[in-house]
């Protein structure tokens, strides 16, 4: 017997109702291969566990400074001071902080541990619900994701993944094979634009859409609509065109950008390039939906089929 397969998990969310059909549990894995500058889940980007600092919640008890062996935490007359450069990412400070001012993001878990939590809601999965593995990018932890999906499926529960498809097919094929339902992102149609927005080109994405079509797995495509990046009718129309050959596509969903992640960037000692960016208006989203529908695909805006 080898070591049990483990993965780094950001969060497990029960009663997840926007991540696939029915009532679901969504397992958010840590680590992503893309660096989309508008990302609103920055805590899922890095592969390793890391510390979030929420100064407003600090009660000034000093337990973190006592727990920290590297002197990264100090309690001064002005309050708590954290020097991220000194942090050895041991996580002891977060264990000592009951005020949730220090939050440790990322927990190493075995397939069985995740499975036990994911199966708590099994009675609620009866009407098509199940378990979704999301990220970060689940294929970054391909072996863990595949094993987890297989274990869930073996219990007769519906499986789904949320993926950016930006990986060589061989790496993720095993994951796709264990998913009953695939939700994938298409950020834009052009390779260079994709590189400028995410740090990587989209050749894999385009190739994998074709490979996905061959598997026949039911799927939905999603585009986060980001002002100044992919928010013209032409941008969206070109993406929709790519999807027309995908026979198993249930619908194409447009998700308006929301500036939700700003506080989280600060908590991780990062800055957000999307600061100050506004959400597209409903009218604008409607116009983009029309541009996509002109290519004959079924479109939803943030879940709404009538928008």
């Amino acid at each position: 017997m080898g070591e049990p397969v483990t993965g780094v998990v950001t969060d497990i969310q029960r009663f997840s109702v926007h991540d696939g059909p029915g009532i679901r549990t969504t397992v958010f894995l840590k680590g992503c291969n893309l660096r989309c500058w508008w990302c609103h889940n920055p805590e899922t980007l890095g592969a390793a566990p890391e510390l979030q600092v929420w100064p407003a919640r600090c009660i000034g008890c000093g337990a973190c400074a006592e727990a920290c062996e590297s002197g990264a935490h100090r309690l001064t007359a002005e309050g708590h001071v954290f020097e991220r450069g000194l942090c050895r990412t041991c996580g002891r400070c977060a264990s000592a902080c009951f005020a949730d001012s220090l939050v440790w993001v990322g927990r190493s878990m075995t397939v069985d541990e995740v499975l036990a939590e994911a199966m708590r809601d099994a009675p609620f999965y009866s009407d098509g619900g199940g378990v979704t593995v999301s990220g970060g990018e689940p294929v970054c932890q391909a072996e863990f994701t595949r094993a987890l999906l297989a274990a869930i499926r073996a219990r007769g529960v519906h499986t789904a993944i949320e993926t950016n498809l930006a990986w060589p097919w061989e790496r993720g094929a095993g994951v796709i094979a264990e998913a009953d339902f695939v939700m994938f992102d298409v950020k834009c149609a052009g390779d260079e634009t994709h590189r400028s927005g995410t740090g990587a080109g989209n050749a894999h994405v385009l190739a994998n859409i074709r490979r996905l079509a061959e598997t026949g797995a039911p799927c939905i495509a999603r585009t986060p609509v980001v002002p100044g990046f992919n928010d013209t009718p032409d941008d969206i129309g070109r993406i929709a065109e790519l999807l027309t050959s995908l026979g198993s596509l249930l619908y194409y969903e447009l998700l308006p950008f929301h500036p939700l992640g700003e506080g989280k960037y600060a908590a991780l000692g990062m800055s957000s390039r999307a600061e100050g960016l506004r959400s597209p208006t409903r009218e604008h989203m409607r116009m983009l939906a029309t541009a996509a529908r002109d290519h004959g695909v079924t479109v939803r805006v943030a879940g709404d089929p009538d928008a």
Partner: protein
Amino acid sequence: MTDPPCPTSAQRPSHLQSAQADFVPSAAAASTAGGSYAQRIEMLRQTKLRQTREKLDVRGFMDMDDHGCIAPPSDFRFEAVSDRDDGGVAGFRACGLNFRRLFEVHPTYVDPADALAGRWMVHLGSYRRMGWPPELPYTHLEAEQELYGIISGIGAGQHFGPDFRIGLQLGWGGLLDKVRRFRALHGPDKEDFYQAEEDVILGIQTWIRRHVDAIREAEARETRPELRANLAEMRAANEWIIENPPRTLREACQWIAWFNMVSRTYNGDGAGDQLDELLRPYYERDIADERIDDEDAIFLIACLLLNDPQYYQIAGPGPDGHDQTSRLSFLILEAAHRMAIPCNLTIRVHDGLDPELFRLGVRRLLEDRKGWPRFSGDKCLTEGFMRNGYPAELARQRIAVGCHWMAIPGREYTINDCVKINCARVFEVAFWEMMEAPGSPSVSDLWRRFQHHLRRAVECTARGIDFHLAHQKENWPEIVLNLLCHGPIERGLDASDGGVEFYNMCIDGSALATVADSFAAVEQRIEREKVLTWETLAGRLRADWEGVEGERTRLMMKRSERYGSGGSLGDAWALRVSELFTRLVKERPTPEGRNLIPGWFSWSSTIPMGKVVGATPNGRKAGAPISHGANPDPGFRKDGAPTAMATAIAAIQPRYGNTAPMQLELDPGLARGEEAQEQIGTLIRTHFDLGGSLMNVNILDAETLRAAHRDPAAYPDLVVRVTGFTAYFASLSPEFRQLVVDRIIEE
């Protein structure tokens, strides 16, 4: 619980004064308004809104639904007469006499847009100038009642259900004949009882007769032809039902409305019945005779729901188990939807339930966002009630007619929702007793002491129930509800005094999560992790978590394994506490042999019950509210998953036929679209499959969000969702909170 009294006339501000004793609210409404049902419903709704504002002006605040009560004219005066030295009103004779006298002068109310006449305006109880009769002391119970925070139910009125069929079949004239017939059969010792019952009926008939005159006057004034025709029909219906049993749907709705209004006036009774089955014969006859169509029926029912948002059940199994869903069940949902005011309909979910009705119910809940319908779980309720030794046929007739409770209409006395034990107080007593005793404290010692004190609390409560049953007739007898019960009139006995067949007395536990989380926190932090001592904890509790160290300890205890999180220490303790409470309540009947039924419910009293409890080991501060009903405390899980809550609450059900309800707050982002309806439908059904008894769902509205935006800390577990992403509202930047508020309010 008993409602606060409606304002008396003395409280009514002068600017609301009216020269007329009679109310004719829509007479001055836009004279151009037509008589279509849609227009009339809109007029009625606007009138209701205005009346609610008027009541707020009079009362200053209103923290519950208004039960259709409106403020009386400012010149309304009533003085109760007394046969007691202290000037108070108690017992059959005085209660009956004053009831009759009140309805000789209670204002009439005629709205030409309404299908039904009448509104209730005052509580008779607020004129009685006394509480529980001082000559009936229960000082032998008071020390323990106070020690354990017991709400004893002594003196509690109503809180059981009438069988409206009795009245609909006999009419007021028939009921009066019945009272007189049995009066003649009984001896002089029942004279007071029967005189009171006669007075009730005569008072009601007088009030209806006065309305007939008022309707006639309104007819003469009315210029709009459709409304004039409506008034003529209203008058004819009321002329008929002064004496006779109703024949048509309109007459039946009006009859029910009269009973509701006078019963509310007498002692606040708001129990309804199985409304679809109750009205079905009248509806079907009217349809067969082509007297009405469905639009007429919807309007009539909408007016009944407007008159009083009584607790009614629709659908669910009949006595033989077959589903009772009928066309009328759908029309009732449609009527409530069109009237769009507070409403208390419950759909009983069982295997045979018409899936279309269930779907429509969920749709109304999510689309209308007014907290109705509620859903009850037949499996838990029927199988549970049978464990008291009753047959399935009877258990199925025990229907939802109260805020969290069930009763067999007309056959069962319960004082549901009136008897509660504050288990947080019991815990506190056990904890401090242990800390002051010699020897070393432990979780097992604490549990042993908690068991001991909970048993004493249950026994004290049971004796209080016997005391109530022995004397309530001398206090405030059930002279209105008696009329629609099987037994009281026949036997000459009040429903509180052996008049009905079944006595299944309610005992609700309160503060389940407070107690379970407290046990879990001490077990985890003191005994398992050894990061805290009993003495330190006791010091922190005494100091109410004062200082930075106190606050750190408080947060540590609060972050222990909570009830509701799934497979946690808190879940295990909640189950253990609920099983103990259930076992102690079911161990034996009251000393006088009355059956007791356990449940978990507290939320009408979470704040006052919390005020008498010091800091508790679950991280709760002294005087803070105790936990709600059977719900886990807010923040029980980071994701606040309703599935986790539904699983936890289903597990702790006492399962004897009373409820431990699940109160769910959903944000509107979760409640949009057909998929959400399917998902919420699955959530409801699965909760009941797992053993749940009752589910109330609130969809958070714009007002709640605005309030949360002003004070996010007060809404720690409010989650906002954008597709594919959730966040704690309180964790978001002020700017983004504004964004969410704007978006949801805009939508």
